[in-house]
């Protein structure tokens, strides 16, 4: 290298050039990730910092006042009587969504993982809601779930009088979960399908020779080998379930009572409807903490639930 440098600089300058190959490579690397990095800084990290800053203030938008109040919003969080009910609704929604979404996605993936004529049509059919506009999807479901809507009309042809789906606490929560699952199950289904197709066929062959029944093959071969995908989909689904907003806003507005008021909808109400931007920011910090803890916990659990990591 020293010889090469001397050759490159016949004048005999002793210092090495600033733009070494390694530096050039790093610069190129940084330039490649810069758009993404700038995006994260501007749209994620700075707003996150600002939200924390706002959470220490009482911000009255109409009066245009912004007063430092220290931990007052956090004390309010501890004393908020509605918050427990809201967190309960959020937990029920997330648990229901994750269980229903993942099991349905896995079932569909197993059913569609067959070499049959026209199977691609079914795969497209189940995936298509993912690309439909969320609000349009929810509005159509809103009509279907009315008391005199399409679903009850269909039930009536079988002589069944359907419930008032969006107006009773239990059915409202079930409706919101089902609408959300049908919207996004296709995405998890595709991920599971890809994972299923990655399972080596020889393992099943060996199991069959050993006389293992189908369920045992699924339990002992399929599940362990697709466990990284199960972890990935469950993290995505849980994080997504905590951020649900449009479905609640369109279908139930958090009702009846507070039964479908999930955390994001509650913080929207506090900040944008009641103009408590400081308290709304405090609730977003709480949401951030919950998502961070859940993601961290799942990541830690991967050693126990994931059979292997590539």
């Amino acid at each position: 290298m020293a010889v090469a440098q001397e050759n490159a600089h016949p004048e005999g300058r002793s210092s090495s050039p600033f733009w070494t190959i390694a530096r050039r490579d790093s610069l190129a690397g940084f330039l490649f990730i810069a758009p993404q990095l700038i995006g994260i800084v501007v749209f994620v990290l700075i707003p996150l910092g600002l939200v924390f800053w706002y959470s220490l203030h009482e911000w009255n938008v109409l009066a245009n006042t912004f007063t430092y109040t220290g931990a007052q919003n956090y004390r309010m969080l501890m004393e908020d009587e509605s918050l427990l009910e809201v967190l309960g609704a959020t937990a029920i929604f997330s648990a229901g969504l994750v269980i229903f979404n993942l099991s349905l996605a896995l079932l569909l993936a197993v059913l569609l993982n067959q070499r049959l004529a026209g199977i691609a049509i079914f795969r497209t059919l189940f995936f298509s809601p993912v690309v439909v506009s969320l609000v349009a999807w929810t509005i159509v479901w809103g009509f279907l779930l009315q008391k005199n809507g399409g679903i009850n009309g269909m039930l009536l042809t079988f002589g069944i009088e359907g419930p008032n789906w969006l107006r009773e606490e239990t059915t409202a929560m079930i409706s919101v979960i089902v609408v959300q699952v049908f919207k996004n199950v296709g995405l998890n289904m595709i991920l599971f399908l890809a994972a299923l197709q990655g399972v080596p066929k020889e393992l099943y062959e060996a199991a069959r020779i050993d006389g293992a029944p189908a369920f045992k093959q699924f339990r002992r071969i399929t599940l362990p080998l697709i466990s990284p995908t199960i972890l990935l989909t469950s993290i995505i689904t849980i994080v997504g379930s905590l951020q649900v907003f449009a479905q609640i806003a369109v279908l139930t507005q958090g009702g009846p009572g507070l039964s479908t008021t999930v955390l994001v909808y509650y913080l929207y109400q506090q900040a944008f409807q009641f103009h408590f931007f400081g308290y709304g920011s405090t609730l977003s910090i709480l949401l951030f903490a919950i998502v961070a803890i859940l993601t961290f916990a799942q990541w830690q659990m991967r050693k126990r639930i994931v059979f292997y990591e590539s």
Partner: protein
Amino acid sequence: MLYQRTLKTTACALAILGTFALGGTALAQDAVNLRMTIWSANEAHLKLFNEIASGFKKDHPNVSVTYESLPFETYTTALTTQIAGGNAPDMAWIFETSAYDFVKSGALYPLTDTLKAAEGYNLDEVSAGATERWTEDGKLYAYPFSTSPFAVFVNNDLIKAAGAKTPAEMIAAGDWTWDNAIATAAAVAKSGKGGLVVRDFNYQAWQYLTSVWNGWGASPWSADGKTCTMADKPMADALAFIHDAVFTKKAIPGPGETVDFFAGNAAMTITQISRASLLPKEKPFSWDLVPLPKGSAGEYALIGQAGIGVMQSGKNAETAADFVAYMTNPENSAKLSQFFPSARKSLLNADILKKTNPLLTQEQIEKVVISGIATGKVMPGHTGFAQIQQMVRSNLDAVWRPEADVPATLQKICGQIGPLLKR
């Protein structure tokens, strides 16, 4: 030589460009673009607003006004989000329910001086009752440009087909009461169509039930706004009546049922008279417009209001106030009153209203519009209305089921909103 010529030419060109640039800067500085947020996207409304803006431009050539239509249901939320984002409009429509929030917060620019100084404006003829909610410490903070009474639109075809009495017949016989109105609605509902629809209520925006419970003399809170009166007898009686009409008599479509009067699917609907524009032009039905029925507390009327305010934080608040003065002067108020009845006394006569409301008969104008505006109470409002509204709404959900305990729910509501009212 060539060098000198080039230099001169360049200097000349720069001088000419410079003059244009300076002139351009001066023009740009003078140009004022005002933005008004509104909750109507009706083409006829926008056409009239744009005409008014053009009229203002004649005297103020540098001022342009644009209107931004925001969705009705989420209007106030969208407006406050704009304000929070540092993108407040110069002028905004404000609902009567959130009037106190805007007027008392200091968000609005005081209009009294500008309106009084405007030539031929005559602010004194605007009734004090109409400006009360928009005034603080003797200063008017928003102009109530719309004072629209609630009334009952009637589909006589459906009522006659069901063999029931029409409201007009009941009015003639002197028995246009809530009991009889519900009896007619129940008869139509039995025939398979909808009975009576309280428009915009949807079992969520409970403030629209004011058009019913005022007949019992009920009110959600005391006149000074400090005490909850939801659990008092008039409110308990009124809500028990509504509950019975919904779940026992089936005269009012229940929660989760969508019935549109203007599509010809219901016997009656309570709404503001400005909704007459929704009456069908193709396949019309025989319709009528009548005052609200008599309740146990006697005859009553209810008006909905809308104000126009100028945002204090805007750079051009003074010019915006001038525009509000122009938009609501007697001449333009007369034009606006075809959609938004004016609170100006000179415009509250049958001849003028007949011209601007060609769909209504002389009798309808006198009995519903003029008398409604003269005697009507304004929809309830309160500081922090959105929070109170949400708290009452989530609790009232317990009332909107067949086996509801109305008095206990109302007690619970008072327990919850009591501290908010005192704030």
